[in-house]
């Protein structure tokens, strides 16, 4: 399988003091929906702008649909569609005009597809952009992108402001696009959306790729939670290597274990005569919160508040 997007060692500086991207690696396979996650300010939008040739890479290799996004911007843009994170459109044009305009500038769009999407997203195309709510402006950008039949879709937090009904429509459309073999890079904070849609995810933190892989792969890299009851007292647990966040009361303990140390911890537990034991893989929120929370620049509370938990 070839790569729709292949980025390695990407560096982007703004001025001499701000390094927005710090040797970022990112690979999106053809035909996959790839989740792009990270706390605010981690560099997601900057990455997408480099992929669009709006910003120039300072270092590193960037390959998009087999071309150089800076040099071949126009030719590549005929083959992709983009939904910006912050949708700024011309206040005095109507939604319908903007959809036609952006589709045409991209090299043409399908009129029947346009009508179908307007229907599904319940968007009135005769209103002026300035009269739309934030969610409806977002729908204009989505319809404008989806009515073009292209190979790659770059979606930067595309569902911010959508109601749950429209979120469901968005997920349906993305599933259909995946079924027909399109590649999609989806930057998002909504974990249920990422889990429902994405084949693989990349987590970006302070301009670097912190993790990349399928959900199962990511889970294997992360600590397992253990709840255990033993006949003998469990106090020694706190001293074992690989054990974190232990709460112990006589023969009952709850803690988490590093993936490499699980077998080792089990051996010790057996010596204490296990009566019952539950181990569980980390939930998605735990997985992401760990990455979001460790962010060097972000404060834990502020960053955590940005994450929308799975219902």
């Amino acid at each position, binding site marked *: 399988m070839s790569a729709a997007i292949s980025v390695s060692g990407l560096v982007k500086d703004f001025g001499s003091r701000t390094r927005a991207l710090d040797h970022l690696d990112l690979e999106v396979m053809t035909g996959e929906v790839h989740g792009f996650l990270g706390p605010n300010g981690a560099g997601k939008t900057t990455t997408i*702008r480099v992929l669009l040739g*709006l910003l120039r890479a300072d270092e590193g290799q960037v390959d998009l649909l087999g071309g150089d996004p800076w040099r071949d911007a126009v030719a590549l843009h005929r083959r992709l569609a983009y939904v910006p994170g912050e949708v*700024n459109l011309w206040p005095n*044009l109507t939604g319908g005009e903007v959809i*036609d305009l952006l589709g045409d500038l991209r090299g043409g769009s399908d009129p029947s597809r346009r009508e179908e999407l307007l229907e599904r997203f319940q968007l009135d195309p*005769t209103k002026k952009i*300035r009269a739309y709510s934030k969610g409806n402006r977002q729908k204009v950008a989505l319809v404008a992108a989806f009515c073009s039949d292209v190979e790659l879709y770059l979606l930067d937090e595309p569902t911010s402001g959508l109601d749950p009904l429209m979120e469901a429509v968005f997920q349906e459309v993305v599933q259909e696009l995946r079924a027909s073999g399109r590649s999609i890079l989806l930057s998002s904070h909504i974990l249920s959306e990422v889990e429902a849609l994405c084949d693989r995810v990349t987590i970006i933190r302070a301009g670097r790729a912190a993790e990349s892989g399928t959900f199962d792969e990511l889970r294997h890299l992360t600590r397992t939670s253990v709840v255990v009851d033993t006949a003998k007292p469990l106090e020694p647990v706190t001293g074992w290597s690989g054990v974190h966040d232990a709460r112990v009361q006589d023969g009952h303990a709850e803690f988490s274990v590093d993936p490499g140390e699980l077998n080792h911890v089990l051996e010790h537990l057996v010596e204490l005569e296990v009566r019952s034991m539950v181990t569980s893989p980390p939930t998605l929120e735990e997985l992401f919160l760990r990455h979001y929370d460790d962010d060097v620049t972000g404060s834990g509370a502020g960053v955590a508040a940005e994450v929308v938990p799975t219902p």
Partner: protein
Amino acid sequence: MSGFTGTMRLVRLALRRDRITLPAWILGMTTFLAATTALFADGYTKHPQLLVPDTRVVVENPGMRVLGLVTGRTIGGYTLHRDALTLAVLAALMSVFAVVRHTRQAEELGREEILGAGVVGRYASLTASVIVALAANVVLAALLGLGMIVTGQPISGSLVAGVSIAIVGVAFTGVAAVTSQLASTTRGASGLAAAALGGSFLLAALGNMLGTVDAAALRVTSAWPAWLSPIGWGQQMRPFADNLWWPAGLSLVSLGLLSWAAVLLVGRRDVGRGLLPERRGDAHARPSLLSPTGLVWRLQRGALLGWAIGLFGFGLVFGALSEQIRGLEGDATEWYATFGGDVDLLGAYWASMLQIAGTAVAAYVVTFLLRLHHDEAQGTLEPVLGTAVSRLRWLAAYAVNALVGATLLILLFAVAVTITGGLVLGDPAPLLLDLVGAALVQLPAIGVLGGAVLVLVMLAPRWSVGMSWTLVVLTIILGPMFGPSLGLPTWLLDVSPFTHVPNAPAVPISMGPVLGLVAACTLLAAAGALALHHRNLALPA
């Protein structure tokens, strides 16, 4: 809680936001006035015998009275005549932009919503913006007066002079307070206020041109239209001669009435909306919209229509006054020597009018090209460049529209002058040909200024707005309308592209300077394009 709760807090917020903008406007205007006063004072101290004939040129010549009035023989009064219109327009624009920035723009960008959710009264933003603009004009009046005093002019006259400029700003503070309620966009609110400013200039110009000259040829009594215009009120204070204070009261009264009207309007509309209703539009784009050029045309056509109406109106008035110019003799004709008047007086009059119109069209081109920066900074550029549109194609769309817009405007002005000029003089056909030629030779100079704006937007996007307008003012000052009378060295005057515009139809068009300007314009545009091609875009975070 009253409707005005929180006003003083919003005043502090506005002053904090404007801590660079407003001082820059005020200091720039003060420096301009002080510097020109020093130049004129120096010239007339060395050659005192020139002051009376020079004053008579201005008083007797209706074309010069467009710029303002001089009363009696004083250096201060003569200087102010050369500067007053520029300063009055700048004071008005400073006030309009300040009021719109803190009212309509805050609403359009959603800031007003956050403020309005706090303990802030319904009228607080409006009142705060009026207070800030009024305060800026008080400071402006004082500094302008000081600027003339330190260059040796009488104290009472200098103070009246400062006030005569600032009251134009005061009146337009009120105008902007109302237009901010009528229009639902920043651009619309500023545009309506600018249209009122154009009307105000036209009324003052008409009143002065139709006025009567006294026996000593040192005083003009203006006709009634001048009294309908805030610019006219400032001129009627007659600094350094009569030193009248009471016309300033007209401005204060109009500010009071307009602010009261604005408060009433605020009470009748929703936040974020204007009074003019929001209409629905087309569900599908017309084919003409479906290209960068078509999109840019669509975005500018409203503004272009406003400018077109304004320039057509000025053209009709200036054309109708051709008859009065033909009858001029003696001192009054001297000013036209700059425009080839020793050969053909009427031709020189038209040449000078086309230069004024050319300057106005240049201002249009600059506001239009600065949209390139706003597209980039406000994010509307991003979705376009995300499609198969290259940066150069986007730039070209702007260049084409600037050229088309400027050509339409200047030709419209020439046609308007021909219509009324032809009526009063007879024989419009050859006049049309002459004036169309004279109009077209303005375009290369306008293009040079446009090219310079492109370079600024591409190389220094954050500073491009302020630097572009500074450039406009400088090229006007160094151009033929002001430059030669300031006694500045020729090489400095040569910097302004307007210096090189042939004085058609007074003298035949020589192609050398025209081609030179075209080459300069092309070079600047190419430099701008090259810079855009290589740099990062300054997109919103």
